């Protein structure tokens, strides 16, 4: 059996040396995300000023896929408007469902490294944990 792996360098690197795994001071938004079946958990923190995500971070515990995916997501959305983050998150979910075009995957930059997860149903929930939490956060923000 071939030991093909989506544990590529992008994923292992973000897992071992995350850029955004820490607390930030005075976050505007904090939301916990959990995968009850496997115990992955993250707490996502964002700072939003004038509709722009000016800073963000996460803390948590879980598999490399869940942790790296959250780190990659933050790298992508920091500095972007909330609406853009929402759009990118939708693109990511599209990619995980194997429905995204090559151009769309390119827009996701490093998150494109998680494309192969779409063939691993058991790991999809790990990959989307951070994004799902982000979506919920934005939804709550919209309702305010």
């Amino acid at each position, binding site marked *: *059996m071939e030991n093909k792996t989506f*544990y590529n360098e992008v994923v292992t690197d973000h897992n071992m040396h995350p850029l955004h795994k820490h607390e930030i001071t005075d976050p505007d938004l904090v939301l916990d995300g959990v995968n009850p079946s496997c115990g*992955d958990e993250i707490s996502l923190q964002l700072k939003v000023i004038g509709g722009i995500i000016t800073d963000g971070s996460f803390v948590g515990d879980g598999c490399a896929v869940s942790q790296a995916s959250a780190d990659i997501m933050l790298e992508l959305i920091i500095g972007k408007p909330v609406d853009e983050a929402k759009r990118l998150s939708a693109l990511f979910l599209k990619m995980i469902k194997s429905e995204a075009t090559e151009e769309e995957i390119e827009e996701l930059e490093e998150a494109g490294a998680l494309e192969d997860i779409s063939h691993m149903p058991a790991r999809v929930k790990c990959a989307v944990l951070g994004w799902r939490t982000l979506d919920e956060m934005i939804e709550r923000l919209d309702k305010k």
Partner: protein
Amino acid sequence: MREKVQEYRKLFPLLSKDIAYLDNAATTQKPLPVLDAVRKYYEEDNANPFRGVYDLSERATERYENARAKTAAFINADGPENIVFVRNASEALNLLAYSWCGDNLNEGDEIVVSVMEHHSDFLPWKHMAEKKKARIVRLDPDENGYISDETLDNVLSEKTRIVALTQVSNVLGRVNDIKHIAEKVHRAGALISVDGAQSVPHMKVDVKDLDCDFLSFSGHKMFAPMGIGVLYGRKELLDAMSPFMYGGEMIQTVHWDRVTYAETPHKFEAGTVNVGGAVGLDAAIDFINSVGWELIETREEVLTKRAMLGMKDTSGISVLGSGDWKDHKGIVTFLVDGVHPHDTADILGRAGVCVRAGHHCAQPLMDYLGVKSTCRVSFAFYNTEEEVDRFLEELSKVRGLMGYGK
């Protein structure tokens, strides 16, 4: 012995695939004699048992009751009336907790539950204790899973009504000395319920020798199909217990204003029963008896020893519980330094090595040991040295694949 194992392996269709199936504590694969027996039952003897007076229904009843007698003999129970068929050990423990506690537990009473119990041997007791305003008293083994006399003495009191304890921990693999513990529990005036899910498939369990009051186990962990399990109980205790589920087949007479329930064990088996599963369990017991405990235990020891010594030689691997292979009944739970267990199990899985990752339905034990989740490798007698070596080989690559040591 290795040649014999090769012969037995041929009886397991699934083992012919190119995988190393090392998740036997979760469920075992099924041999042809079991699969054939179930198929033959459905082809030749299937009818709703107990109901029909025609020959076919009588045959189905006979097959079911034969399985009960076979199971009773297997664990050296007094007789078939000590055996209640259920879906699995979880259902057995739920039946017991609901029914026994419902009838016998009072406010202020204590139930002793060890911290290493499977959620199935914790949550039903916890639920009933809360309902009855009784107290759950936690029994903590040492970090190797050992329960000392002192530990036991500290939790037993005149308020203790029942002790719920596993014979083999599904995480630590440790065998508890039930015979000794049961004696102490009885001396304290309490009952002991033994979770045999991980022991009955791997060693001779004799309820008379252990002197346990209840024993629960699942068929699917001992080569039988999923959906058949056993609650053993002392006859007088089962007789005194109320039914757990109500419905067809568990009554003698039902009138609008008065009901008489069936005798033990039928009063606990409402609805159409799982004859096919019971026939499979019957065949699985025959299979285990034909293989023999000597071969089963020796082979599992050989494999456990080989795995644990190999893991000791692999950098970045730590084993939970005792470091001595003799303390592991075919179950070894471990961590790979810096790698989340799900990633480890995923990487091994891609290489065809099936191991379990997660909390193994024993989160209180995970908390107690200070870990969130772990990987577990568990053996059956049909596993081979080659499979252990394949596991070790793939395990040694995990840290590298996750970017360590580059």
